[in-house]
């Protein structure tokens, strides 16, 4: 009696390789050089981009404060998450770190648990200060202390919520 085969494993035809060619299997260094040059040119816009992202975060915070709920919470998380991912590219690693702390708090607190507005504000204010003062050095002692404090406060809130 034939045994059933619950797992089918197969290799589809490699249409991409047929389309783009290339034989070495390595990185296209010439294309990478062009891309690095394009990124350099783009850097002049990064200041405006991070400013836009901070504005979006402030607006999301205001929306959550006015109408706390699933939608406004999700919008706040998206704003914080975007900054967490993008700020290092825009040369603001400290902002990324604070945004990561805010994302973690929103992500780890249970859905029905109201987000502590004072701690949201502490994060948003920290991001505004770092941005306003152009703080891009991750070794800044004051900024490091601020980030550590925010991390600790988030730890406490998350721990309390899980009790």
């Amino acid at each position, binding site marked *: 009696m034939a*045994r059933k085969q*619950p*797992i089918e*494993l197969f290799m589809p035809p490699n249409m991409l390789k047929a389309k783009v060619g290339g034989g070495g299997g390595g990185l296209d260094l010439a*294309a990478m050089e062009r891309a690095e040059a394009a990124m350099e040119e*783009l850097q002049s816009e990064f200041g405006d981009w991070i400013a836009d992202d901070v504005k979006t975060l402030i607006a999301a915070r205001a929306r959550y404060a006015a109408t706390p709920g699933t939608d406004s919470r999700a919008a706040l998380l998206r704003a914080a998450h975007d900054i967490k991912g993008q700020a*290092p590219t825009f040369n603001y690693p400290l902002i990324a770190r604070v945004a990561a702390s805010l994302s973690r708090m929103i992500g780890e607190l249970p859905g029905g648990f109201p987000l502590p507005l004072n701690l949201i504000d502490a994060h948003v204010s920290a991001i505004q200060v770092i941005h306003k003062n152009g703080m891009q050095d991750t070794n800044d002692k004051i900024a490091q202390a601020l980030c550590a404090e925010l991390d600790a406060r988030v730890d406490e809130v998350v721990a309390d919520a899980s009790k």
Partner: protein
Amino acid sequence: MGANDYRFDRLKVLVVDDNIHMRKLVTTILQAFGVIQIAEVDSAERAWESLREFNHDVVVLDWVMEGMSGLDFIRMVRTNPQAPNPFVPIIMLTGHTSLDHVRQARDAGVNEFIAKPVSVKTMMSRLVAVIEHPRPYVRTTGYFGPCRRRSAINEYQGPERRVENPKQQAAE
């Protein structure tokens, strides 16, 4: 052309991100690579429409978006009968960096994973990976997508163990 020069100008790439800056960043890198045919959309819903209309060759996808998430989009592409190409390579570009998130993306059917911040080298390496090292696909009762173990088909290079017992082989 050098050995590693690809005809990226022949690729149709779909960039899906609800953040306009990230879309511009990714598009700038892809254009510098030589990709000409780039479609940008700001939601997974629009990505689905675009994919069905243009059948893109590669998708660069954000995870956290309003409406349908990147993960749900991947599942839709892999399993919806209306998907134009369930094998389309999907490169997930996300701020999620934990191992658990990588697992979730893998279990949804992502081909490659890029943790933000994005870099030129990482983008190139993932693009080359989907061209040069495509994964075999797996279909089980609960999953369809790229094999979640790398090199699953090629990892055993020895002789066929069951050849010595053709009766058993035939029975299976």
